[in-house]
Every structure is written in structure tokens, then in C-alpha cells.
């Protein structure tokens, strides 16, 4: 069980090793290049230099140097440069939030946010030092934030040194003179006749969590195995996970390291989750070449809904018809009727008269429902429309379609009581469809 002091020592040692290896390699060239009589002198000088190099890596010396360089970078959870790579101003290490009981997702719901480093890339080694982790996940920087210098005590030569180090390292986690920038986002929020000016910063720690989960779903061995099992239709304990609608936002162009350390690790990419509304514009063409919208154009739209409804009915077939089940069933049918109403509305937005196309094989009542504006220049069509018979016919079509879909499933269509009740419900629901069809104009 290595404690943090040992980890600091190890870290400095590894830096020292890297540095000395490089020194040896570089000076080796010098030895080779030196003429024979100079070799001895050169070797002397080289040894002396090497000692001073080593001296730099005495923990106390290195730490003093690191503490003085700490101000060149900042450990943050929220970074400004994502907004614009030329923006200069405050990035922040957010304090733990007020209350996590709120139903919102933000950095404050993360127990241990991954910390990002921004600033001078030459000081990144100091950043790595501060992110050293204790076995329980507590970071060196957390000690600094709490003014607790215990991990440094065994390495310091005096009390004064500890005080200096603390002050130096603290600069990496305190926002100095808060400032924004002309390239940063700044927005007004109205509060009782006055305003607050809000300065949004990019939540790089939260973004990191999402990024890691998407990457895991795509590239982890576990997921590869799960997907292979799915491809070959084999059993597996595993569940496949996919993020179907992500978009990629890139930061920093060819130099993601200019934005932040985590951004560099993400290859400058971050993932966005879709919040888009359901789309209807996939309907570029009116429903031609079909005998009914319930055979294709509309049925495809509600395929997922129907599967869900059937599953639900089968799962609850033999339970007592409790209120929750009825409510859920009703909700699911509502959704399908919604789709019907919206489908009708979207087809009606095609140019009036589309249903007179020779390729339109829909029955008259569906034409009347989906192309009402044709009445303006088609007297016969108008007369039929005014009879209003088409409303009942469309509702009946929908009813037959829904029942046929459900009867495909032998479990539901056992002619049991449930199914009878179910038809009653459908009929009720269809009165509403009729309402919608009637009220469409």
C-alpha cells in the first residue's frame, strides 16, 4: 500500500530517469565528437553537469520548482477554450455542488469528476503530479484544496518550504482575477426586472464521462464479444450497448492539446446526444402505389409502437386488469392514434389534388381524408366529402388494422375475455379518432 508521499517520490524518480536517459544520450554524441585529447575534460564536465541535473530532481528541489511553475496551468472541471480556441480568461475548478437532490444532470452529480488541465503545455508535468491518486481515489490536488500538506511533509526540508509549496500549488486550482473574453459566451438572464450576466463554461469533466461510455460501448472487448454473439445468434450473458444517434463535435482542430489535456486524450472529439423531435419529413412523397395507407406508409411508421403494445399485452395477459395496466395500455394506444393523426396532417400538407394522380390507388374515403383541399377544384369530390361517410370508414380501417395486427399474435387472440375488452377499448378510442378526423379542418 503505497501512500501518496511514496507516489510523489516515485513520480519524481521516473521524471529523473527520463531526464537522465535523455541527458546521457545527448552527451554521448558530444563524447564521440570530441577529439582524443579533449575526452577526459569533456567527461569531467559531463559528470559535473550530470550531478547538477540529478540535484534538480531531489524531491525538495523539484517540488519547489514545480510549485513555482504551477501557476502556468490550471486544474479545472470547466474550461473556456472549448468555446473558442483563442479565448483567454477564467476556467474553473467547480466546488462540489449545493445539493445533489435536484433532478438535473450536470458536473455536480459526478462523485469524482475527472480533472482536466489547461494552460502552458510545458508545465503539464506539474499537472500530472497533482493528479496522483491515493488508493481510495483521493487526489493529491484534493489535499491541496483542503490546505492539507501531509503527503508532502516527508519530502520537505523545512516548514517554510511546505508553506511556499502550498501557496504555489494552490494557484493551479484557484481562479485568479476572474475574467471573461470577447470570444467567450456571455448571456443575460432576466431576474425581476434586472439581469445577471451568465458566463457558461464547457463541462469538460462531464463530457469525459460521456465520451468514455460511448468508447466503451464501441471498442471494449466485452462489447466486441457481445456483438459477435449477436451476429451469430448465440446466447450470451452480456448485453449489447449502442448509442444510435450521437454526433461528433471536434475541438482544437489538428492541435487538440491546445484546448486541454482531456481534450487531447479524446483526440479532440466529444459526443453529443440527440434531442431531436420525431421526424416527418422522411415523407417526401405522398402515399402512391398502395391500396391503403394501413398497408405500408402508415403501418411502417408505427411498427415499433405495435411491437411494444403486443409485448405489453402478452406480458400482462393473465394478470387482473388493474388500473395501472389499463392506463399503460391506453397510453400506448394513444401513441398509435397520435401517429395516425400526425400522419394525416403531414400528408395533407402535400399540394392539393395529389390524390388525383393515376398512381394513387387509395380508396375514396382515404383520399377524402388525406386530400381535402382537392374540393376546391373537384365538384364531385366535394359532394362526397360533404356526405361525411368517409370519417366512419377511415376509423373502421384503423380499427381493422389494429385488430389484425394484434390477432397475428396467437397469445393475444385466444378469444379470451381480455381480447373482448380490448375491442371495446379500441372502439372507444376510435370514437376519438373520428373526432380527430372530423375536426381536421
Amino acid at each position, binding site marked *: 500500500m503505497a501512500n501518496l508521499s511514496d507516489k510523489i517520490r516515485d513520480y519524481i524518480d521516473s521524471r529523473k530517469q527520463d531526464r537522465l536517459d535523455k541527458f546521457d544520450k545527448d552527451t554521448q554524441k558530444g563524447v564521440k565528437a570530441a577529439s582524443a585529447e579533449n575526452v577526459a575534460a569533456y567527461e569531467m564536465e559531463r559528470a559535473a553537469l550530470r550531478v547538477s541535473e540529478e540535484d534538480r530532481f531531489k524531491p525538495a528541489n523539484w517540488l519547489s520548482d514545480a510549485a513555482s511553475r504551477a501557476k502556468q496551468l490550471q486544474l479545472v472541471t470547466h474550461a473556456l477554450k472549448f468555446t473558442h480556441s483563442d479565448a483567454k480568461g477564467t476556467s474553473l475548478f467547480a466546488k462540489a455542488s449545493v445539493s445533489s437532490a435536484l433532478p438535473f444532470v450536470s458536473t455536480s452529480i459526478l462523485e469524482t469528476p475527472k480533472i482536466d488541465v489547461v494552460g502552458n503545455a510545458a508545465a503539464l508535468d506539474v499537472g500530472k503530479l497533482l493528479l496522483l491518486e491515493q488508493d481510495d481515489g483521493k487526489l493529491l490536488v484534493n489535499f491541496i484544496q483542503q490546505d492539507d500538506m501531509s503527503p508532502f511533509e516527508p519530502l520537505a526540508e523545512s516548514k517554510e518550504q511546505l508553506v511556499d509549496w502550498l501557496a504555489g500549488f494552490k494557484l493551479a486550482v484557484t481562479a485568479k482575477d*476572474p475574467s471573461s473574453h470577447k470570444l467567450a459566451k456571455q448571456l443575460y438572464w432576466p431576474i425581476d426586472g434586472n439581469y445577471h450576466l451568465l458566463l457558461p463554461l464547457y463541462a469538460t469533466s462531464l463530457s469525459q464521462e460521456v465520451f468514455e461510455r460511448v468508447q466503451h460501448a464501441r471498442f471494449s472487448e466485452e462489447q466486441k464479444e457481445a456483438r459477435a454473439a449477436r451476429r451469430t445468434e448465440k446466447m450470451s450473458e452480456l448485453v449489447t450497448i449502442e448509442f444510435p444517434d450521437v454526433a461528433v463535435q471536434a*475541438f482544437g482542430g489538428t492541435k487538440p492539446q491546445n484546448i486541454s489535456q482531456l481534450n487531447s486524450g479524446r483526440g479532440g472529439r466529444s459526443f453529443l446526444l440527440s434531442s431531436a423531435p420525431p421526424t416527418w419529413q422522411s415523407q417526401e412523397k405522398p402515399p402512391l402505389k398502395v391500396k391503403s395507407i394501413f398497408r405500408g406508409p402508415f403501418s411502417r411508421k408505427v411498427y415499433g409502437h405495435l411491437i411494444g403494445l403486443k409485448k405489453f399485452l402478452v406480458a400482462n395477459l393473465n394478470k387482473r386488469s388493474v388500473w395501472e395496466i389499463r392506463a399503460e395500455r391506453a397510453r400506448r394506444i394513444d401513441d398509435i392514434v397520435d401517429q395516425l393523426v400526425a400522419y394525416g396532417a*403531414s400528408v395533407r400538407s402535400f399540394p392539393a389534388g395529389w390524390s388525383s394522380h393515376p398512381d394513387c390507388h387509395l380508396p375514396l374515403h382515404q383520399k377524402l381524408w388525406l386530400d381535402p383541399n382537392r374540393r376546391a377544384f373537384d365538384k364531385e369530390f366535394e359532394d362526397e366529402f360533404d356526405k361525411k361517410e368517409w370519417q366512419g370508414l377511415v376509423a373502421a380501417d384503423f380499427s381493422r388494422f389494429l385488430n389484425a395486427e394484434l390477432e397475428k399474435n396467437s397469445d393475444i387472440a385466444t378469444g379470451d375475455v381480455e381480447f373482448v375488452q380490448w375491442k371495446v377499448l379500441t372502439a372507444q378510442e376510435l370514437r376519438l379518432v373520428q373526432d380527430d378526423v372530423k375536426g381536421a379542418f
Partner: protein
Amino acid sequence: MDKLLVIRHIKVEGANAIAGLTWGFPSMTSFLGLTHALQRKVQTKVSERLALNGCAVICHSSQVQSHSNNMSRENYFALTRNPLTKDGSTAPFNEEGKMRMDISLLIKLYGPTPPEIEDTLVEFIEEALLASRVAGGAVLSIDEIELITDIGAINRERSTRKSFLRKLLPGFALISRDDVLQDHIQKSQKAPLDAFLDFSIRKMSSKGKGDKAEWTTNRLEYTGWLKPIMVGYQGISDVYEAGQVEHVRDRSCPVQFVESIYSLGQWISPHRIDDLKHLFWHQEYQASNALYLCKNDYQPDTPILLNDETNQTIEEK
């Protein structure tokens, strides 16, 4: 609620399609910001006694300017070529997502609107909107603007409410579903972030079926088009007094650093709404939690089917 501005079919080009960690629709903060900007214009030009407060958004169609490659199943934004810098190199720029959309807005209006200013107001709103940015995009056209002076009359009767809402089809209204997110966090006992991401994930699992296995999608038990949405900002620093922060656009008001916060939203068909107030969003500041919220009053209702008549039918069988 007394009066309502109904703005039908605003077609917008180049609106912002990115909201924090989400994409596909501008954030609600844009539309509430627009509502407030309109209020400022109305108060200076039409009547100081009018207030615009609260707005509902219905999206009829939308198209993000992006493309995807079928290999990685990712979407990429179509980006603009920007002018070169003065030494001829490529200017640094940040990826922006743009979209086209056709939306309708309902905006609540408070204050006296005597008949003589009604027409002026409607005309003014149209002019102001055409000159405004909507979620950062330009307005191409507006179909119609209507001022409804007694919204209560429409809302009380089911038939008048339905016919009002039906005019908003085809389209979907955005409402908030904090309740679903809360419920899912509780039931699943997952970390909040994982529970939240469940609504953006497709999971499939296998069941034995003879010597093969059948893989099916595990659906969540919630129905509806549920999506992660950005709902406002959370303070991440103290509130600084006016003038304490350098390089801000306004040194006369308090300043706070914030991050975007997210919750669940649902796109629902507007004609399913039982009460118009369920559609509206408004801005709220909670000083104690340092929250700048877009709040929506949606209450999940019992479906229409569950009236007494239906229940009786079932008891009798």
C-alpha cells in the same frame, strides 16, 4: 393565463443545433430569450404595460445540416469555410451545428390590449420577429400571427381546445419529464448519469430459442419520445458583484460562471394535451441552488380512456 400570441410556422435557417452536450434542436433557453427580447421591444414601441412571459414550442419539421458515415454511425456537422486571416492562413474556428426548422410559438401575454392596439401589436410582433435571430438563425418567413384575447375560453372546453391544438399538427411540442428521470434513477438504482444515458442507448439481450438465441431490444418501461435536453444553467462560481469580472459585455450587473444542466424532455403530439398550461416554459432563478432554470408545467395525466364508462365496461365483463 389570459392572452396568447400564436405565431404559426416560423421558418428558420441556420439555427443553432447544438445545446451543450445535446444536438438536434436548439435549447429552450433560446426560445425564452427570444420571448424576453420581444417583450423589451414591445414595451418600448407598443405599450409599457404589456409583458411577454412564458412560451411553448411546437416543431413541425427540422433538418440538421449534418451527414453520417455508415461505418461509424456517427453524425458530423456540415461546416462553413471561413475567411482567411490577414496572413492568409486558415482562421481558427469552432465547430458549429446548424439546422433548418419550421416551428410554431405560443407566447403568453399579460396586460391590457384594447382593440385599437391589437392590430398594431400583431404587426409589430411580425416585424420584430422577421428582424430577430431565432436560436441564432435567420427567419425566412412566418405564416400567420394571431392574438387570442381569452385563452380561458379555448382551454376550458375540450372540443375548442382540441380544435385549437389540432391546427398545430403535424408537429410535436417539447415538454419536460423530470418525473421520468427521477423515477428511473430511483427504480434502477443507477448513478444519475447512467440512468440519464439509458434514454440515449439501445440495449439488446439474448434469450434461448432452440439451439439458437434470439436477440431483442430491451425497452425501458417508459413510453413516448423521451430525449435528453438542456434545461438551463447551474452556477459554478460565486455570484460576482457588478464590475468585478474583467472583459464582460456589461459592467453594471452581477456576473456568475455557469455550466449547462440537463434533464429529460418529451416530444408529444400537442392535441393530446389536457390543459394548455402544460405546454408552457418559463424562466426561473433559484438563488439558494444557484440555478437558472427553464421550467415547464407539464403534469402527466391519466389517458382519456380511463373514464368511468370504460371502467364500468370492464367490471361488467
